[in-house]
């Protein structure tokens, strides 16, 4: 079954998913087109590695699209996609114990050499896109400040203030009570204010 790509752009997520369920290849492509940038941005800002972010984004879409037949339309499609993407990033961070990546090195590094090594690992990854972003003064400072947040705070703040999701949707995505989401976002903003001020003063 083929649907012209142009007509798909005007359809809602639910409508496109319904077409995908009917086996429409173009509908699958449209879903990827809609979410590839938000999903990749979120994962990249969580794991700070382009290759890895691509792999995890790819895994996210494969999971979502291979399970599209079992998708229940009473739930928001975007919540589902972001949930799988966030889980992929968090799982990776847990596995690699990079849960509090910092420009100053891993918190698990207990010698100056290790601290330097882990710090270099992060800054030497040559993320051209990240460097490009960091060249912009405020954007760069914010990107660096986000890196220092706890992963839970990072997910919340990125979903709320970068992806523009509502508190309720973030609660759905992260499986957290609404109050916790609000607290995390406020704490994250508080930390970002402190970090921003600190980075400015450096």
């Amino acid at each position, binding site marked *: 079954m083929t649907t012209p790509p142009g007509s798909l752009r005007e359809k809602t997520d639910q409508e496109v998913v319904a077409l995908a*369920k*009917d*086996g*429409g*290849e173009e509908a*699958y*492509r449209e879903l*990827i*087109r809609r979410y*590839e*940038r*938000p999903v*990749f*941005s979120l994962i*990249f*800002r969580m794991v700070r590695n382009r290759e890895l*972010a*691509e792999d995890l*984004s*790819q895994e996210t*879409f*494969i*999971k*979502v*699209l*291979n*399970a599209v*037949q*079992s*998708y*229940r339309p009473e*739930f*928001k499609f975007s*919540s*589902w996609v972001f*949930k*799988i993407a966030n*889980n992929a990033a968090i799982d990776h961070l847990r596995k690699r114990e990079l849960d509090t990546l910092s420009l100053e090195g891993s918190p698990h590094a207990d010698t100056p050499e290790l601290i330097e090594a882990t710090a270099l690992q992060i800054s030497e990854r040559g993320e051209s*896109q990240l460097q490009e*972003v960091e060249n*912009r003064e*405020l*954007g760069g*400072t*914010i*990107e660096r400040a986000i890196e220092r947040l706890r992963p839970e705070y990072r997910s919340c*703040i990125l979903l709320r*203030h*970068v992806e523009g999701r509502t508190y309720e949707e973030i*609660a*759905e995505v992260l*499986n957290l009570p609404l109050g916790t989401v*609000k607290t995390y976002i*406020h704490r994250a*903003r*508080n930390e*970002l*204010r402190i970090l*921003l*001020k600190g980075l400015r003063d450096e």
Partner: protein
Amino acid sequence: MTPWPTTHLTADDLDAFHSEALNHEMRLHLETCRECQTLVALDREVLDGLGRLPSLSPRDGFLDRVMARVAIGKPAPVPVLSFPRLTRGRVTALIAAGVGMAASVAWSSVNRPVLDRWLETVGSTVWTRGNLLWQQGFSYLASQPWFDTLRELSSTPLRLAAVSLAVIGLYATGLLALRRLVTPSAGTVSNAGA
């Protein structure tokens, strides 16, 4: 004179400020409090910075790489009940059960009078014991202090109908509550485990 206690802007006040919904009292406070002015300015800067972060995109060909690994239109696998595989042990057990049943039928048809006698003895014992148990149970119920009330409630057909309806309602509510309790939590996004 005791100075009025200073209440600085809370996190909710900050949100209210950004959505232009800060209340009058806090607005007045903000006009004079240098600390809160700095806080608001920094918070605005953070939000501006976050809002201006660019949307990043994966390398070219991402879509095709994903599509190469997606099974289009393939329905979700449905678990199918299948007949258990016949192993040697299972076949032996089946044969043994079949032989046992056949032997039982054969013996029953040959020894019909013996079987009838046994059944009669067992039947009469069960009947007598059952009857006795029933009588004991009923007399126990009748001796309860609430029995008269219960009998009163079912004294007319109308009352009996009302009581029955109430009991059915209670039972249905219990069933619903139990169903909610035993249903595994799906979270708010049921598909997320995919």
